[in-house]
């Protein structure tokens, strides 16, 4: 047997799953990417990495590729001398240059692993830079330690968000005097249209919200003939006042655990966490939770929208029923997606999340056990896309769902890939479509169903090439 055949065997799969040290094609990036993504959701904010400049070049080009949008951010370009003496001098000079040149309203600072390994103290250095006159006392600098050898990009998102909230809210907490608003944390959601959708639903319910962090405008700015380096984002005043909200809801529990906990424990807020509430039932729960927390009813216009999504779901259920799906990505997205697939009568089979934890595995297995459609499903925390490839070729499924990195495994398995998540680098505009809410549900139904039907039309023989599908 040649190697090309051997890597498709059960024997190979067992060897592949026996590996303990090597990671091949993981579905996770490192913390600072999430920190930069989060930082870009605030007004006038310059993401700043304390560390080597190569990291920032990578974050910028990866984000720019996915969104096909500019991503301004800086680093303080630490080199070998900083490795020896620490990065204090880089920060003092870097903050001055960044502030003079790019005039930010806030600098959101995270660390590369270089700065973490040598043990640079962000707060002390920032204070040194203020003393040295690099930046005015009034310029907020939110410091987040984001070591790339702990957690993943979703951890970085959480760390940066918490740092920003703490920095901007300093001295602003009015014990018990609530501002009547609800905080919504989208999490590391590559489909930024979801934020617009959530804001629309909140507006329909008459619920004022603060989105932490709102990067819809950052990643979807109009082509106007003018470039604005800072475009959109949650205002710093609103973000600072978020500690006085009546409550905080997260759309991605794993990407915001620390921040949500802080809002509850330190600021006495009601909190609720969701795992990327895709599909009708999950979004129903989200809206009911909003209603419960704010006392505002869900209006008939939303019920109508829900009805239209349900109509779309019913029209298309036959294309999902009994179909076997594999999926990969962030832990929250996987929980949301598996729930949605089961809601449609599809069967989640292999669910891979390199940054999924043991806790996530238990949650996923419980979710699968809650539906007869989940009986073929297995959660694979810590596994990667090379493991997934073995699964796809030994226990076949009908479709793979995940980001563009899945295209190689999907090709080898001869199945279509429906793209959701980050990064999507080989299709256009998908970030401009929601995956959450009732419209998002319709988008998912449309993409998945039509991918199956396109595949059928492309591969079937003439006798079965029918006008009606």
């Amino acid at each position, binding site marked *: 047997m040649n190697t090309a055949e051997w890597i498709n065997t059960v024997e190979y799969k067992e060897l592949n799953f026996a590996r303990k040290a090597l990671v091949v094609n993981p579905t996770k990036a490192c913390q600072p990417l999430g920190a930069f993504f989060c930082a870009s959701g605030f007004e006038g904010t310059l993401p700043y990495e304390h560390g080597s400049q190569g990291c920032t070049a990578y974050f910028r*080009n990866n984000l720019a590729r996915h969104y096909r949008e500019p991503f301004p951010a800086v680093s303080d370009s*630490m080199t070998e001398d900083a490795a020896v003496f620490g990065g204090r001098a880089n920060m003092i000079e870097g903050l001055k240059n960044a502030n003079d040149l790019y005039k930010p309203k806030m600098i959101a600072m995270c660390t590369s692993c270089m700065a973490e390994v040598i043990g640079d103290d962000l707060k002390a250095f920032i204070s040194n830079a203020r003393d040295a006159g690099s930046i005015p006392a009034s310029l907020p600098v939110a410091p987040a330690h984001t070591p790339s050898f702990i957690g993943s990009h979703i951890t970085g998102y959480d760390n940066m968000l918490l740092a920003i909230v703490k920095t901007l809210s300093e001295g602003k907490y009015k014990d018990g005097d609530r501002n009547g608003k609800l905080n919504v944390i989208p999490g590391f959601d590559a489909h930024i249209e979801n934020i617009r959708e959530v804001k629309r639903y909140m507006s329909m319910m008459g619920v004022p919200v603060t989105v932490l962090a709102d990067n819809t405008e950052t990643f979807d700015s109009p082509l106007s003939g003018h470039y*604005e380096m800072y475009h959109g984002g949650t205002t710093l005043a609103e973000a600072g006042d978020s500690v006085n909200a009546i409550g905080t809801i997260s759309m991605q529990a794993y990407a915001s655990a620390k921040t949500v906990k802080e809002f509850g424990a330190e600021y006495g807020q009601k909190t609720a966490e969701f795992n990327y509430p895709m599909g009708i039932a999950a979004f129903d729960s989200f809206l009911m939770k909003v209603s419960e927390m704010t006392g505002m009813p869900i209006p008939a216009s939303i019920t109508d929208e829900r009805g239209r999504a349900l109509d779309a779901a019913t029209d298309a259920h036959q294309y999902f029923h009994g179909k076997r799906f594999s999926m990969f990505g962030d832990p929250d997205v996987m929980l949301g997606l598996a729930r949605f697939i089961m809601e449609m009568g599809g069967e989640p089979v292999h669910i891979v999340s390199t940054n999924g934890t043991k806790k996530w595995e238990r949650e996923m297995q419980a979710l699968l056990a809650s539906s007869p459609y989940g009986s073929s499903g297995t959660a694979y925390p810590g596994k990667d896309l090379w493991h997934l490839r073995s699964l796809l070729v030994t226990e076949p499924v009908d479709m793979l769902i995940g980001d563009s990195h899945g295209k190689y495994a999907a090709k080898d398995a001869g199945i279509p890939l429906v793209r959701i998540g980050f990064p999507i680098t080989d299709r256009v505009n998908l970030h401009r479509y929601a995956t959450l809410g009732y419209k998002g549900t319709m988008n998912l139904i449309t993409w998945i169903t039509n991918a199956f039907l396109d595949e059928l039309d492309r591969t079937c023989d003439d006798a079965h090439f029918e006008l009606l599908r």
Partner: protein
Amino acid sequence: MKTTEVKGFIDELLKAYPDKARKNRASHIAVKETAPETGGETAEPSCSTCAIKSNVKSIPGVMTARGCAYAGSKGVVWGPIRDMVHLSHGPVGCGYYSWSTRRNLAQGKPGVDNFVPFQFTSDYQEKDIVYGGAQKLEDICREIKVLFPEAKGISVQSECPIGLIGDDIEASARLMQKELALPVIPVRCEGFRGVSQSLGHHIANDAVRDHVLGKGKLPDPGPYDVAIIGDYNIGGDAWASRKIIEELGLRVVAMWSGDGQIETMKLTHMVKLNLIHCYRSMNYIARHMEEEYNIPWMEYNFFGPTKIEASIRAIAARFDKTIQDNAEKVIAKYRPAMDAVLAKYKSRLDGRKVMLYVGGLRPRHVIGAYEDLGMDIIGTGYEFGHADDYQRTFPQVKEGTVIYDDVTEYEMEEMVKKLRPDLVASGIKEKYVFQKMGFPFRQMHSWDYSGPYHGYDGFPIFARDMDMAVNSPTWKLVKAPWA
């Protein structure tokens, strides 16, 4: 715009910087000038090697486009070698961000005998940072041997923490090389080394020199043996280049490193001539082969018919009459096709102004291709060039051309606003900034997901792409009719 005017404007834009940064940045920007006393002959600006400062640290806190040594080694030099596993050694990010993003096309079956579109990582965790990862690295090598039996070697691409925590990857590599009977090559390309990608290229070249070169024997060396050095096969470039070289009657023994193989790279010390496309990233190994094996090397340029023809003749001049006759035949064969390209596109692009900002060889090598299309280069610069790059560039550009080194995004924006090129040709980080401003743009690292751009196969695609960018009907819609 007059040269003095351009200079004045540059002085003005630099005023936005704090003093120290302003002085630093001023030394990285020059305007090509003609010395009046030589009666219009092109003179090198005041001092040919120091007119523009280069290959020094970027100033902290600004948007430099530069990457790091790891990017230069794993991303550029090693990554395209298809029959090896390239391990991003350290935390997960570096390998993730550089995963299949340079478009180094390669033959072979992924996962069997082609490992280019992969992200192999040791995914360092906190415990590895604290206790060191030697054991982990060794286990990884063993697992690679089991799971990827056709891999002909492993390169260990160090990320920042490796050098900082003091892991002895050389010792692990030696141990594994012996145990697995497989080349295991440690590369000290930690991202904090040097000032840009450039040192990473050098470090990678040195590792190739120490661990690959000369390790094999070409069974049938011949008089026409050459190697292609510094072509990374972006969008199929190296295949387009190889085709021309083979049509000349030469034998390409090895490709460095686009669609490359360690199995053939190790024979390169037996070729008769090294042909270098990207001088910046691979001159080191060519110089080494010259010193150690007496193999001459020459630079060539396969962008656009004028440079292709000149390069073909220059390459052929290194060989006998057979090859020289072939050269004329090849040129004659492709001339009609190239003329057809020019007939189609030149009138659509004639006189259009281009600003370039790229890395490696392109800030000078693509000038000829644009000029073939009648386009004018009004600015160009390198992310990580050295003095020898700028020396090679000044003679290629016209008076008044702005030359910038490690330009910041702020400077580039201001210059584009002022100089108003018809096309900006740079990278992904710049692309959308200028498109938002309404300027047509092409990515010149990745060919904007097109290509090849090299050789006779590439020029028609290059011409089409520049035309479709500059003349896209979408640009006519930038201003809303009611605004």
